[in-house]
C-alpha cells in the first residue's frame, strides 16, 4: 500500500498542478473506455461472440431440416426440454430461426460491423484524435452490450426467446398469450426491450459518426479526399439515423398492444372460440413501419462492407480505385433509393398492384448503382498487381457473392414474379448470399486487413486462406442449391406432409452438412483471431521517431498508418498530419504508393 502510494506520488510529482491530467486505469482503459480504438475492439469481440451464437443456432435448425426423422441425443443434454428425446421441439425451432435472424442482422452485421469499423477507421482515416463525442460513443457500446445481454437472457426463461420471426409481425407477436405461441410471452417482451436498446445504441453511434466525419477532418482533408470506407460508413450512419426511429415507433405501438390492450395492429382476434376485444388495428401498419427500417437495414449492412472492400481491393491490387466519384455517387443513390423501396417486401399483403409497380421500378433502379460499383471493383483489380492475401481474397469473394446474390434480386424485385417466390427458399438464398454472406466477406476482409492496426500484429495467413476457401466453397454449397428448391416454403419445421417436396430431401441434407462444415471453418477464424492477438507476427517497424515505432504493413496511402503502431490516446503524438492528395495514389509517378500526407511535388498535378 505504502509503496503503491509512493510510486503514485513519484509518478505525479505535481499532481495538483495538472488536474486535467488523467492516468488510464484498467477500468478506464479496457472497460469504460472512451477511446475509439478500444471501443472498436469491444464492438468487434462482442460481434464475434454474437456471430458464434447466431451461427450455432443455424446449425441447430439445419439438423432438424436436414434430418427431420433422426434424433440427436446430445441435443437433449444441451437444450433440455427444448429437445426432448434428441429432437428439437417445434416451438424451439421457431425460436432458433427468429433469434438467428435477429442476432445476425442486428447484433453482428449492424452493431458488430458498423460499430467496429466506423469506430476504428473514421478517426484514423480522417485525421481526428477521437470521435465528436467520445462519451456518447462509449454509451453507444454500452447500450449495444446491454441490448445483447437482454437478448441473450431470453434464451433462459421458461417460455423461451421470441419465436414469431425476426420481422416480429403482429398479430402473432401482438398477443402475450403463450397458448398461441410460446415465444410471444416474456421472450418477445425481452426482444422488444433488447431491440429498443439496440436502436438507441445505433442512433448514438450514428450521430457521432456523421458529426465526426463532417466536422473533425484534419487540414487538407476535403470531402473528395476521403477514403471510400469513410463515405460508406457515413452514409450508413445517415440511413440508420433516419430509418431506425421508424422501427422504434413500430415497436412502441406493438408493446402498447401487448401490454395495455390497445388495438394498433389487432382486429377481431379469435382465440379458442373467444373473440378478443381488439378492434380497428391493422397488421399491415406494422409491416410498413418495420420495412421502412427493414429495407434500409440491408444497406446499413452492405454499405460498410462495400466501403471496406473498395479500400482493400485498391490496396492489395496496388491500383487506384476505378471511378472514385462514381463510387461515392452510387452509394448516395443507394442511400436515397433505399428509403423508397420498402413495400417490395409486402407485394403479397394485398398491396395495390399499381403501387406495387412503382415499388418494382424503384427496386430495379437500385441495380444501376450496384452494377456501377461491381464494374468499378472489377476495374480496380483489372491488371493490378493482385496480392492473394486473406484480406484481398475475401474482398474478391465479396464481389463474387454480391453478383450472385444481386442477380436474383432483379428477379425478386418484380412484383408479378415475387408473388410466386414470396417466402420460398429462393428468397432465403437471395438475401443470405447478397446480404448475409457478402457482408460477412466484407467484414472478414476488413478484419484481416486492419487487424495489424488494431493489435499491432498480423493474423496467421495460412489459417486465413483455409478460412477463405472453406467459407467461399461452403457458402455456395449452402445457398446455391436453395435456388432450385422450387416453391419450398421457408420457416417450415418439416415438409413430411408434402409429398411433392420429398425430392428435395437430398438437397436439404447436403445443405445441412455444408452448413456444419462452414460453421467449423469459422471456428478456424475465431482461433486465428484470438491466437494472433497474443502470438501473431508483429508488424514490421519501418521507422522510429521520438520513441514511437511506425509501420505500414500493406503499403497503404491512407492516414491510419501515420499513427504509431502502439495504441495511443489521441492517435498522433504531435500535430495531426496535413493531407495533400487523394487516398488512392497507387502505382503512380513510378512509385508503388504515395501516402496522403506527402506534399505534391512541384509541377505534379493532383488527382482531383
Amino acid at each position, binding site marked *: 500500500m505504502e509503496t503503491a502510494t509512493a510510486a503514485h506520488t513519484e509518478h505525479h510529482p505535481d499532481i495538483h498542478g495538472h488536474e486535467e491530467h488523467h492516468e488510464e486505469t484498467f477500468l478506464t482503459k479496457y472497460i469504460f473506455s472512451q477511446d475509439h480504438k478500444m471501443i472498436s475492439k469491444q464492438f468487434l469481440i462482442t460481434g464475434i461472440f454474437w456471430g458464434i451464437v447466431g451461427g450455432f443456432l443455424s446449425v441447430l435448425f439445419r439438423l432438424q431440416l436436414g434430418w427431420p426423422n433422426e434424433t440427436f441425443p446430445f441435443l437433449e443434454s444441451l437444450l433440455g426440454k427444448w429437445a426432448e428425446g434428441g429432437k428439437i421441439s417445434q416451438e424451439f425451432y421457431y425460436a432458433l430461426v427468429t433469434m438467428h435472424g435477429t442476432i445476425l442482422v442486428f447484433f453482428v452485421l449492424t452493431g458488430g460491423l458498423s460499430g467496429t469499423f466506423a469506430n476504428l477507421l473514421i478517426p484514423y482515416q480522417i485525421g481526428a484524435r477521437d470521435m465528436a463525442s467520445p462519451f456518447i460513443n462509449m454509451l453507444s457500446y454500452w447500450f449495444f452490450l446491454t441490448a445483447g445481454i437482454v437478448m441473450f437472457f431470453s434464451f433462459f426463461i421458461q417460455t423461451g426467446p421470441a419465436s414469431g420471426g425476426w420481422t416480429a409481425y403482429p398479430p402473432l407477436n401482438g398477443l402475450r398469450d403463450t397458448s398461441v405461441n410460446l415465444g410471444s410471452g416474456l421472450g418477445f417482451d425481452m426482444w422488444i426491450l433488447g431491440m429498443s436498446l439496440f436502436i438507441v445504441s445505433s442512433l448514438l453511434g450514428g450521430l457521432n459518426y456523421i458529426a465526426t466525419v463532417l*466536422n473533425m477532418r484534419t487540414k487538407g482533408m476535403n470531402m473528395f479526399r476521403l477514403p471510400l470506407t469513410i463515405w460508406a460508413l457515413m452514409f450508413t450512419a445517415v440511413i440508420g439515423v433516419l430509418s431506425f426511429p421508424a422501427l422504434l415507433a413500430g415497436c412502441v405501438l406493438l408493446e402498447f398492444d401487448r401490454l395495455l390492450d390497445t388495438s394498433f395492429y389487432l382486429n377481431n382476434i379469435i382465440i379458442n372460440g373467444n373473440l378478443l376485444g381488439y378492434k380497428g*388495428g391493422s397488421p399491415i*401498419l406494422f409491416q410498413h413501419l418495420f420495412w421502412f427500417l427493414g429495407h434500409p437495414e440491408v444497406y446499413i449492412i452492405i454499405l460498410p462492407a462495400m466501403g471496406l472492400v473498395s479500400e482493400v481491393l485498391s490496396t492489395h491490387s496496388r491500383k487506384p480505385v476505378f471511378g472514385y466519384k462514381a463510387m461515392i455517387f452510387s452509394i448516395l443513390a443507394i442511400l436515397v433509393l433505399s428509403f423508397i423501396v420498402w413495400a417490395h417486401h409486402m407485394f403479397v399483403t394485398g398491396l395495390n398492384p399499381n403501387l406495387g409497380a412503382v415499388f418494382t421500378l424503384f427496386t430495379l433502379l437500385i441495380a444501376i448503382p450496384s452494377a456501377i460499383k461491381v464494374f468499378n471493383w472489377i476495374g480496380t483489380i483489372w491488371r493490378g498487381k493482385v496480392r492473394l492475401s486473406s484480406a484481398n481474397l475475401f474482398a474478391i469473394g465479396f464481389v463474387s457473392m454480391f453478383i450472385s446474390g444481386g442477380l436474383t434480386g432483379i428477379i425478386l424485385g418484380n412484383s408479378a414474379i415475387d408473388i410466386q417466390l414470396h417466402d420460398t427458399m429462393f428468397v432465403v438464398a437471395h438475401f443470405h448470399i447478397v446480404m448475409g454472406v457478402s457482408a460477412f466477406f466484407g467484414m472478414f476482409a476488413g478484419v484481416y486487413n486492419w487487424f495489424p492496426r488494431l493489435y499491432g500484429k498480423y493474423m496467421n495467413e495460412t489459417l486465413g486462406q483455409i478460412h477463405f476457401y472453406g467459407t467461399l466453397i461452403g457458402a455456395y454449397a449452402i445457398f446455391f442449391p436453395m435456388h432450385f428448391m422450387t416453391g419450398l416454403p421457408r420457416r417450415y419445421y418439416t415438409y413430411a406432409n408434402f409429398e411433392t417436396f420429398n425430392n428435395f430431401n437430398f438437397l436439404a441434407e447436403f445443405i445441412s452438412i455444408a452448413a456444419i462444415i462452414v460453421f467449423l471453418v469459422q471456428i478456424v477464424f475465431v482461433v486465428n483471431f484470438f491466437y494472433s492477438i497474443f502470438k501473431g507476427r508483429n508488424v514490421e517497424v519501418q521507422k522510429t521517431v521520438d520513441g514511437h515505432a511506425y509501420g505500414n504493413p500493406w503499403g497503404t496511402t491512407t492516414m491510419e498508418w501515420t499513427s504509431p503502431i502502439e495504441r495511443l490516446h489521441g492517435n498522433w503524438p504531435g500535430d495531426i498530419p496535413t493531407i495533400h492528395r487523394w487516398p488512392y495514389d497507387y502505382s503512380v509517378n513510378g512509385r508503388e504508393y504515395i501516402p496522403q500526407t506527402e506534399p505534391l511535388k512541384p509541377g505534379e498535378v493532383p488527382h482531383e
Partner: protein
Amino acid sequence: MSVTLTEQDILKEKTEYTGVHPQKFGLWIGMASMSMFFAALTSALLVKKGDYRSWEAFRLPTVFLLSTITVISLSCCIHAALISYRKSKFSQFRWLMFFSFLLGCLFLGFQLMGWSVLQAGGMTLTENLSGSFIYVITAAHGLHIVVGLFVMLVFIVNAFRNRKDPIYELRDIINPKRQLNLELLVSYWHYVDAVWVYLYLFFYLNYQ
C-alpha cells in the same frame, strides 16, 4: 512517454468545416432522428384515420392549448437564461433556469390533465384507435420532456450549489465545456418544444 490529451484538447480546433461545434452538430443529427420517430408515429395516425371506418372523432381537450403556451414560454425562458449566462449574470441565470424547470413540470401537469379530460369524456386508452394515438404520442413526447427536465435539474443543482463562493462559481461556471453543454441543453429544449407545437397543430387539424 505517452501524450495524454483531455477531451477539450481533442475537440478544440474543430469548427472550421461546418461552423459549429461537432457535438452541437451531433445533436442536430439526433434531432433529425427524433423527428423521424415522431413522423413515423404521426403518419401511422394518418394511415389509420384513413382506413379505419369506426374512427371516432372527438374534441381535443382545451388544456393542450395551455400546454402549448407553456412550452413556448419555456423556450423563451430558457433562452433568456442562456443569454444571461453569456453575460455572466449568474443570479439571473439561476432563477431563469429554475423557472424553466417549473414550466417544464407545469407542462407535464397539463398533459396529465389532458389525459384525465380524455378519460372523463370516455375516451380511454383502449376505447378507440383515435384516442390511443393521442395517449401514445403524448407519452412518447412526455418522455423526451422528462429527460430534458432531468438534465436541466443537474444544471440547476450545480448552479445553486456554488453560489455562496464567487471563486468556485467562476471556476465552475465560466468554462467552455459548461457553456457548450448549456447550449446543447437549450437547443434540445427548443427542439422538444417545437415538436409539441407541431404535435398540437397536427392533433388540432385531425381531431376537430
